[in-house]
């Protein structure tokens, strides 16, 4: 390991420095001149993001691994930093989002300086910077101490950002839950590092890589790491904090959280299990696959029941994390049973979906933020018809919807397709159980995809299509250019990553080289036009063709059908002759998901309530009906409420110690003394 500082690392340092500057600006200048937040700290944030992308991309494409150390930390342990293709990849992901929000933020944050619920701006800027800083340095960490310090810094500043609008009880509750789970998760991760350190005899990652673990302890270390990072990634059943925390944060922060922060959990899992622990066992893969499948399915089913746009998106993060975990699980299964190439395929699928989700989920949260910014509405049933008022936002949001619903030719589809392809190689396995399990998992993935599509038809359809449901929505305007720019960037990337998957996979080769010493040579065997992960005979996909074909159809349609015909006549929609249609006759989000709620009943704890108001009189007539439905998360009711009750019950039970009676206290110390005397004599 060379101790020389390579240039990519310097770029990363530049990114870190810019982030710090951004934080400093917010800390010092913003209280007096709020303008600095928009044009000072966000500017630096932009540079930080750009530098991260540059540095990460450099080390990824040039396959550079550079290390460095600072005389900080413990007297006998410096801060070890290291930038390698894996961290470079995630650094790029982070940087992209940072750039996007630094374009988006300046206009969006004006919201908070105005109005009766105006908040002080400096904390927002400072903790945004710390949040980014934590992630950047966590990715660069090369020893357990630095890793944990910045891991926790990320969680902590995330807490301050979630609780930023603390006048709402929902924010406080969500923030508390988030921090509690984050803290416990971090401690569990700590234990995993502890095991590695105990075997490796030191806290640096190099020693841990060198450590030879017994299978049992390796499994324990992996279990701890998986649980700990799983909390951050938001896998079922450790996800409960996520749908609470993400919606209440400011939208650009929600984008960072869903886009970047939960990916850091994925980074941790990959880093520990593939890099530090080393030899992957297929049993781990099975666990990861099962949990991943559960997360994706439950995530999307819960998302379907939401009518709060941001909450819906948050649940979709759980779903997508599940898909990523499925890819990882498959990869572990194949690696564990000796199929290196297939294992690599799974890993690539997982990483590809990681960056895809970062892009389109960031885009969608920014879109939701744009809607919130103009309409102050988060509830789908208060929106509608926004496509007429905010056409550009609508288009960008639609791109995100298509991408997340895994529809060709956008990026979401590619990664799911790769996951499918990996799963379909099940016959290569010896173990019959796995051979049946994998295709079933694939089918469930298909179910997930279909449900996700349904969910986003609902989200986009109810929010942007149809007629406006409230007056405020009817008066909405398009958002400023900066916000559109932020979203546009991500949308463009979604398209590019969807259309040129071959290039992307080639670029990822260094990561797989680093982790499993294997790449996918066949992926680009047929050139950039054809994606053939295993071999052209087995499977192939050509996104450019698809795009071309759709464009051609549009062109032909324009040429032959539109030309010469008279312009379209506008008329009222058919109202069955019952008079004018009103916006209240439209399907609501609850109505839209009602059939699915009925089909998959029992997945949720559903509370349906119908309040009927009957007018007084000899024959009571129903004057008004109010229908409300609430769906609750079983995992909350089954796992967390009992734990909370248990702790409090224990706390109450133990109160007897503090009776306030001095004789009791004296008895305590008397008995303690006698017992100890008895023990030692």
């Amino acid at each position, binding site marked *: 390991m060379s101790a020389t500082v390579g240039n990519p690392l310097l770029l990363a340092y530049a990114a870190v420095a810019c982030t710090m500057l951004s934080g400093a600006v917010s800390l010092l200048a913003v209280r007096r001149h709020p303008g600095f937040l928009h044009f000072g700290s966000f500017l630096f944030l932009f540079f930080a993001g750009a530098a991260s992308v540059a540095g990460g991309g450099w080390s990824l494409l040039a396959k550079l691994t550079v290390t460095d150390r600072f005389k900080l930390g413990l007297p006998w342990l410096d801060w070890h930093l290291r930038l390698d293709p894996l961290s470079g990849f995630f650094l790029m992901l982070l940087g992209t989002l940072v750039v996007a929000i630094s374009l988006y933020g300046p206009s969006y944050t004006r919201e908070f300086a105005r109005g009766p619920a105006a908040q002080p701006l400096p904390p927002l800027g400072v903790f945004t910077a710390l949040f980014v800083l934590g992630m950047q340095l966590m990715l660069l960490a090369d020893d357990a101490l630095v890793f944990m310090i910045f891991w926790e810094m990320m969680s902590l500043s995330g807490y301050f950002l979630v609780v930023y609008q603390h006048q709402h009880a929902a924010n406080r509750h969500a923030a508390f*839950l988030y921090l509690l789970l984050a803290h416990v998760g971090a401690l569990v991760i700590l234990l995993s590092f502890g095991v590695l350190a105990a075997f490796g005899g030191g806290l640096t990652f190099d020693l841990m890589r060198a450590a030879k673990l017994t299978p049992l302890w390796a499994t324990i270390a992996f279990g701890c790491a998986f649980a700990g990072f799983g909390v951050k990634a938001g896998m079922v059943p450790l996800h409960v904090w996520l*749908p609470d925390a993400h919606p209440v944060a400011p939208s650009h922060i929600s984008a960072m959280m869903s886009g970047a922060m939960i990916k850091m959990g994925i980074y941790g899992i990959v880093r520990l299990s593939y890099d530090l622990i080393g030899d992957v066992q297929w049993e781990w893969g099975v666990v990861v696959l099962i949990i991943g499948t559960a997360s994706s399915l439950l995530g999307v089913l819960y998302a379907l029941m939401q009518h709060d746009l941001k*909450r819906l998106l948050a649940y979709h993060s759980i779903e997508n994390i599940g898909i990523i975990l499925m890819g990882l699980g498959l990869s572990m299964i194949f690696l564990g049973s000796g199929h290196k190439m297939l294992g690599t395929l799974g890993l690539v699928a997982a990483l590809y979906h990681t960056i895809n989700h970062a892009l389109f989920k960031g885009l969608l949260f920014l879109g939701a933020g744009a809607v919130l910014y103009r309409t102050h509405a988060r509830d789908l049933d208060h929106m509608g018809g926004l496509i007429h008022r905010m056409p550009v936002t609508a288009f960008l949001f639609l791109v995100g919807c298509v991408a997340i619903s895994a529809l060709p030719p956008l990026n979401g589809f590619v990664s799911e397709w790769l996951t499918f392809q990996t799963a379909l190689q099940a016959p290569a396995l010896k173990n019959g159980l796995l051979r049946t399990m994998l295709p079933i998992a694939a089918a469930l993935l298909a179910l997930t995809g279909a449900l996700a599509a349904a969910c986003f038809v609902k989200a986009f359809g109810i929010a942007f299509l149809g007629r406006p449901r409230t007056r405020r929505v009817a008066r909405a305007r398009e958002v400023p250019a900066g916000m559109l720019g932020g979203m546009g960037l991500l949308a463009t990337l979604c398209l590019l990553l969807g259309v040129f998957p071959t290039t992307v996979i080639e670029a990822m080769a260094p990561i797989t080289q680093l982790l499993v010493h294997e790449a996918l040579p066949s992926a680009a065997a047929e050139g950039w036009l054809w994606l053939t992960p295993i071999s052209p005979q087995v499977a192939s996909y050509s996104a450019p063709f698809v795009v071309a074909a759709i464009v051609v159809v549009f062109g032909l349609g324009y040429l032959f059908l539109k030309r010469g015909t008279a312009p379209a006549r506008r008329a009222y929609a058919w109202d069955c002759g019952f008079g004018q249609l009103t916006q209240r006759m439209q399907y609501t989000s609850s109505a839209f998901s009602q059939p699915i709620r009925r089909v998959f009943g029992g997945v949720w704890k559903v509370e349906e309530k119908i309040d009927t108001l009957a007018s007084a009189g000899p024959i009571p007539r129903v004057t008004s009906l109010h229908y409300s439905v609430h769906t609750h998360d079983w995992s*909350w009711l089954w796992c967390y409420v009992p734990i909370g009750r248990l702790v*409090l019950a224990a706390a109450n039970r133990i109160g007897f110690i503090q*009776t306030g009676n*001095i004789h009791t206290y004296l008895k305590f110390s*008397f008995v303690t003394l006698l017992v100890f005397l*008895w023990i030692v*004599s």
Partner: protein
Amino acid sequence: MGIAALGLYNQAIILFAALALFTSFIMLAQARMMPLIFTFAWQGLLLTVVSVLVAIASDHPHLHISAAITFCLKVVVIPWLLYRLSAKLNMQYDAEVIEHPTLLLLGGVALVIFSYHVAQSIIHLSGLATRNTIAVSMAIELLGMLLMIARKSAVAQVIGFMSMESGIFFAAVVSTYGMPLIVELGLAFDILVASILFGVFFFHLRDSFGSLNVGQFNRLSEANDPMPLRDAAGESSPGDPS
């Protein structure tokens, strides 16, 4: 070696030690205030005598000083102080009920046996003739603590506390010919201040509680304000805030 084989002084020491132990038992059983204080004074006197005897038996002149200190504190000052206070708070005649007195005394006996058992392991070390008295001193200390636990009255608690001190002092004398002088002085000073403070507190206690029955002091009890279970980290499910 049997007691018969000891010199007269040592025999006397052992005798007085036994008497001191006896006084602890009396204190344990004594319900009325005045006799309690007097018994405590008696115990102090016995200790003084013991330390004088030890001083003579093994010519440790500085033991005379500590004997003097003990006399002043344990026989004169503290009993007098307690007497004056209980007179001021006119409680010198009131007696408190001791529940299960026989049980208490039996417990005391058990403590003696226990401390003997504990002391056994270390007695062999001492070259002193009077080594068996270590067990006695430990017993006196524990009995003092038992007294503090058993009694409701603040005064009784103070006396128990003081007799614990006496037991420890006794142990120091018989096992090691007393502590270094500086320690003795510091100890004496502390005890003096402590007894004065106790005196001050009697008044405060009576002013704020109307009695010296420490059993009633439980305003700071936590047993009776539990947390509502509903509070469990926000039981409102992470479901629609609506």
